[in-house]
């Protein structure tokens, strides 16, 4: 049913948009700190490994990656449409597939940690 699919896709997009709006500025700022050679202590191996090894850490890292990828995929799909690339079926399949693949890899590596 159309409503089911659209509502699910849009719901995840909205959740991803909210999450990234709140979290990504700090995330990018942390990368900025790393880039300038001021890696915060929490991102040193012992601490970050312990965080990613905890259930809370795994869940939040997966949540961020999955929702961000979904959000990006969905909006790029719309952007492609806006830019005149009118092959929605193909564009959507490719983008959602990449998002799904990225999420699956996140699960795989999180389990390994």
């Amino acid at each position, binding site marked *: 049913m*159309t*409503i089911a699919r659209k*509502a699910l896709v*849009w719901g995840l997009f909205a959740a991803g948009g909210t999450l990234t709006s709140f979290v990504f500025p700090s995330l990018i700022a942390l990368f900025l700190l790393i880039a300038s050679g001021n890696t915060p202590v929490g991102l040193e191996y012992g601490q970050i490994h312990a965080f990613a090894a905890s259930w809370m850490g795994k869940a939040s890292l997966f949540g961020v990656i999955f929702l961000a990828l979904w959000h990006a995929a969905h909006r790029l799909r719309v952007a492609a449409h806006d830019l005149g690339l009118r092959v929605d079926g193909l564009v959507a399949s490719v983008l959602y597939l990449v998002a799904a693949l990225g999420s699956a890899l996140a699960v795989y590596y999180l389990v390994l940690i």
Partner: protein
Amino acid sequence: MGTRQIELEVMRYNPEKDEAPWFQQYSVPCEEDWAILDALIYVKDNLDSTLSYRWSCHMMVCGSCGMTVNGEPHLTCKTFIRDLPDKVRVEPLENFPIERDLVVVLDDVMQKLQLAKPYIIRKDDPPPEDEEYPQSRAALKKFKQYTMCINCMLCYSACPQYGLSNDFIGPAALSLAHRYNLDSRDQGKAQRLDILADHDGVWECSFVGACSEACPKNVDPAAAIQQMKVDGTMEWWKQKFGLTGDKP
């Protein structure tokens, strides 16, 4: 009161003669308090009686004088000369076929307004003639803003998604559906879900927000559409978990 000479550049199109629209210049001595509509009326009365345009009330109520003024959709009765430069370009509303000069074909949106099922739907039988459905002021406040629409279609003219695909149901019709969905007397939300569920319904909107900026009545159609998306999503989860009796 002094007059100011305005160079009006008006798009003309005569379906019987012209292959494509073209621009005609008129030099109009405008009174200080004139709106663009007054200038057009001056042209028709004094300079060129062949010019066609729509208007009726001249007071922001009828919604028929919408045109593109210097690239933006406006009601010409409330777009004042004093706020404009000496050269003003007047075109028909964007995104609609041109019938003649500044008159556009509105058949498509008239049909779309019907799709919204803009009337109260009840599951029970209608009450006897002398009874009413009571409604609190708080309940009225919920949707009052969406009742202000005058069907001027500036929002459709502003919306790039409607311009790109006329299948999109569009801002005013979706706001109208939302208005009835929010009405405490209405029980037809499930029936209006078609408009939600359909590919050309709310999901076609990418929240450019241009409709709300264009709207002369502060209806804020973009807000209505986003609320319908949130609503549709919630509805879906509720159905998934069997929390609602409503079946679309």
